[in-house]
């Protein structure tokens, strides 16, 4: 049984270490020695999560599949360079995110640039503030909720989406996200805040409308 969430307190993210099992380092060590069965076990553990990551970044199934395949192939061929100073999964996420970002840049060269200067902190105050009711999650069937969330994340600009995906969905730390994307920690924080506020505002349209119908 899991422990209950503390009441009236922020909910810090679960640590990525919750993903890793205790025997992971044994599998990694065996895979480094060329044991493809051990590597295959690592693939079996993480393939669904890595596909989710590449899909969430690229929002294109073909690119997501290619990025996932290349991420696993590259992780195998570079396994000797993995010095286990981080979790294998975190290392794999960084490889997969880079593969996905490469494809996103190719497909949307004018819409995606991590090189842009950090945005100023102006105009952050939300404009649409309405009550969502006690539990919007319970007002929608699961499939309907998935459709809403997919639509909403699709419309988030890639610059913000990749930061949100790495930080909030994949639960990388701010520093890991900055290293993966090659941007500064303040840039990650700024974009994460904006991504969260934009997503809230987009969800507000669905949840507010549902509340008034």
């Amino acid at each position, binding site marked *: 049984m899991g422990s209950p969430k503390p009441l009236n307190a*922020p*909910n*810090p*993210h679960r640590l990525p270490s919750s993903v890793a099992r205790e025997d992971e380092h044994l599998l990694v060590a065996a895979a480094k020695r060329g044991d*493809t*069965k051990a*590597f*295959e076990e690592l*693939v*079996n553990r993480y*393939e*669904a999560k890595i*596909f*989710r990551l590449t*899909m*969430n970044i690229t929002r294109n*199934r073909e690119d997501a*599949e290619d990025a*996932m*395949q290349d991420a*696993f*192939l590259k992780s*195998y061929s570079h396994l000797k360079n993995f010095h286990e100073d981080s979790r294998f999964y975190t290392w794999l996420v960084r490889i997969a995110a880079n593969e996905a970002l490469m494809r996103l840049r190719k497909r949307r060269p004018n819409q995606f640039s991590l090189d842009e200067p950090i945005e100023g*902190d102006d105009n*952050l*105050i*939300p404009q649409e*503030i*309405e*009550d*969502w009711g006690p539990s*919007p*999650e319970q007002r929608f069937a699961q499939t309907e*909720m*998935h459709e809403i*969330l*997919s639509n909403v*994340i699709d419309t988030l600009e890639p610059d913000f989406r990749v930061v*949100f995906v790495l930080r*909030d*969905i994949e639960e990388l730390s701010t520093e890991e996200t900055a290293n993966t994307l090659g941007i500064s920690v303040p840039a990650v*924080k700024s974009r*994460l*805040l904006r991504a*969260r*506020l934009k*997503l*809230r505002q987009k*969800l*507000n349209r669905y949840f507010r409308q549902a509340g008034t119908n």
Partner: protein
Amino acid sequence: MNCDDVIRELSNYLDGELALSAKQDIEGHLDECHDCKLVVDQTKLTVEVFCDAKLVELPNDVKSRLHEVLRRKLGGKGN
């Protein structure tokens, strides 16, 4: 602390990255400001619904092709 300050620190607050005094300042403001309280609660819920949704499943054909590629390129025996 005003509404601007709260929104600027919103992510740090949700992630538990604020010093105790700053956290208390925000919570004092939230006790008084209904709009900020809604934004903070809704933003927290926004993060949670995306975390919990498992929006993307790995399709069987994509999984099969991945394992086929790995078998072919790594020379393993496969499953």
